[in-house]
Every structure is written in structure tokens, then in C-alpha cells.
């Protein structure tokens, strides 16, 4: 792990082609049957293809989570743009979406065609209950990061109450709460190093 070893480890990997981008994100989509897309993206983009370093990936992950849209879709755009511009983004998106969408829409057709069959309904009654647990688990996992941070929890509670209890539409909740949260969490320049942009 010495400094001298770093340049040798960073052997130049040829920049990916459009086909490479598409096949990479297809591989990610198919590996992630049932979740864990971020972990798979990391493994495939960094460990297998070695297109980015860990640090570059973390930056990418932050941006893709911060902006609206599915994280994996945003990640495909980020990686595609980085290497091949707009065409790269489209290639990565095609790889990520076409096969999974085909599978999903086929499943949807099957469901809407057969959903009145009692046996299927019985099985699904269990499956949907487990999926509901999955939907809950996303918030439960994250709330641990904010324990005892009363201001953060208050903003979370306000967002929750707005959508769930008062049935306010999501765009309105986001447009009102985001600026308030930004003002509240605005970095205060306590240090003299007040950089003026």
C-alpha cells in the first residue's frame, strides 16, 4: 500500500466503447435480480472492468443519490457521459433498461391476465406482504444514520406527515421543504477560511 505502488496499480485501462458500456450495464441489471444494484455496480465497474477508482465511484454515488431519478439510471448516465458523452449515456441506459423492462412488462402481462386465479392470489398475498417489508426497510435502514439528530428527524417527520397524513402532493412537499432544509443546514463559516466563490 505504499505511494510508489500506486502508479503501477493504476494500469491504464482502455476507455470503454459504446458496446462495452451497454454490455456492462446489462450485466449490472441482470446481476441485481432482487436488489443490491449499488453493490453490483461497484463490483462490476471498479473490480471487474476497472474503469473508475473507489474514490471516483463514491463521488459518482453521491451525485446519483442526490439528484432525482433512480440511482442506477443516474449512475448509467454518469458513467456513460464520463467516457462517451451523450452517446455513452444512451448506450449505458439502453443496456440497463431494455432487457429488465422486457422481463417486467411480460410479468405484468401475465399478472393482469391471470390475477383472478385463486391459487395465484393466495401466493401473491404472501409475496406482497414480504415486499411491503422491503418497502419499509429502506427508511428503517437510513433512520439509523440520523438517531439523536433532532433537526434532521424533524424535517423527516414533516415530509412524512405532509405526504402520508395530510395527503399533500409530493411536488409541493418537496418544493416547500427543500429550501427550508437547505437554509437550516447551510454551512456556517465558523472558521476564518470563508471562501468566496
Amino acid at each position, binding site marked *: 500500500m505504499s505511494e510508489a505502488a500506486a502508479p503501477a496499480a493504476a494500469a491504464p485501462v482502455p476507455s470503454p466503447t459504446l458496446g462495452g458500456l451497454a454490455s456492462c450495464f446489462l450485466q449490472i441489471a441482470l446481476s441485481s435480480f432482487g436488489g443490491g444494484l449499488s453493490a453490483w455496480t461497484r463490483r462490476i465497474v471498479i473490480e471487474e472492468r476497472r474503469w473508475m477508482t473507489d474514490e471516483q465511484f463514491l463521488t459518482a454515488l453521491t451525485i446519483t443519490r442526490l439528484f*432525482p431519478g433512480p440511482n442506477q439510471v443516474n449512475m448509467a448516465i454518469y458513467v456513460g457521459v464520463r467516457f462517451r458523452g451523450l452517446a455513452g449515456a444512451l448506450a449505458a441506459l439502453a443496456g440497463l433498461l431494455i432487457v429488465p423492462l422486457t422481463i417486467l412488462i411480460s410479468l405484468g402481462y401475465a399478472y393482469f391476465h391471470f390475477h383472478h386465479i385463486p391459487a395465484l392470489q393466495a401466493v401473491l398475498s404472501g409475496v406482497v406482504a414480504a415486499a411491503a417489508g422491503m418497502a419499509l426497510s429502506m427508511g428503517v435502514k437510513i433512520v439509523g444514520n440520523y438517531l439523536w439528530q433532532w433537526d434532521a428527524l424533524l424535517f423527516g417527520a414533516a415530509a412524512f406527515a405532509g405526504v402520508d397524513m395530510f395527503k399533500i402532493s409530493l*411536488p409541493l412537499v418537496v418544493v416547500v421543504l427543500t429550501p427550508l432544509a437547505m437554509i437550516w443546514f447551510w454551512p456556517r463559516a465558523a472558521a476564518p477560511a470563508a471562501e468566496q466563490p
Partner: protein
Amino acid sequence: MNDELHTLWRIAAVFLSLSLVSLGGGNTILPDIHRAAVHDNQWMSDTQFAAIYAIAEAAPGPSSMIVSLVGLKAGGLVGALVAVAAILGPSSLLMYIACRTWDRFRDAKWRIAFERGMGPVSLGLLFASGLTVVRSSDHSLAAYAITAVSCALLVRTKISPLLIMAAAGVLGGLGLVGQ
């Protein structure tokens, strides 16, 4: 014909309006998708919504692709494609612009404030999404128990969600969940 076009327009309008507020990876918009699909437009029943949520979670690809199944029920295959294009279009365009400009704002205070402020707001929205699905899915004590156990397993262990859903499907098939 006019009716079909009107439906496609409704699908596009619903999902275009949600694209730029689909924070937290897109899972935060479930309450509004539910309201649009079940109540406002009556494209499907509550039970069907719970089912397509489970199907979208089990299938590969991003979970917000649930919109394709709402579009499919409302407007057929074209409806599905319109829904996907509408939900991804604006946010993808914004992401594309962000990729090209974000690094310039590395030290900007508004960027830091944005990064700190979005987390808590998304958190609350995620809980609202979770509850929306629970209310659509669970209609018996056994169902609530399965939800609680699967939530705990997903938070505490690395068991594959597919395995958990399959096990719950077996319980349902045995008639242990009730409708």
C-alpha cells in the same frame, strides 16, 4: 381513439410531474403513484397495486420501473413506454446536465446545504412510501407479521430479498396469509 390519446396524455402528465421530485432513488414517489393509479384515475385496484409493486421489486432493474406496469394497465404497451419515458426523461436530462457541471460547484455552499438537507427530507418520504405499500398489501394479522419479519431480515441480514419473497409466497400458497 380520442379516449386512448387522452389516457396516454394522462399517463405522461402524471409521471412527468413526478420525475423531478423522485428523490431517494425514486422510491419516494410511491404514495403519489398509488394515488394517481388507484384513486384519481382508477386504473387499478388497491390489491393490483400491491401486486405490481411486488413484481417490480422482484424483477431486475430499478424499482421505479413499477411505472411501466401502471402504464401497461392504463394504456397497454404504448402506455408502458410512455410511462417510462415520462418518469425518466426530465430527471435524466437534469442528471446529464449535472454530470457536466457539478464538479464546478464542489465548494459552493448551496451544494453542501443541498447535500445535507436532502437526506432528512428523503427519509420522511421513504417512510411514507413504505406505509403506502403496507396499507395496500396487508389485510390480515399474518400479513402484518410477514411484513415485520421481512423488514427486520432485510435490515439485519444479507438474505436475498428474492428468497424472502419466495418464502412468503409459499406461506401464502399454503393459505396461511388470508386475503
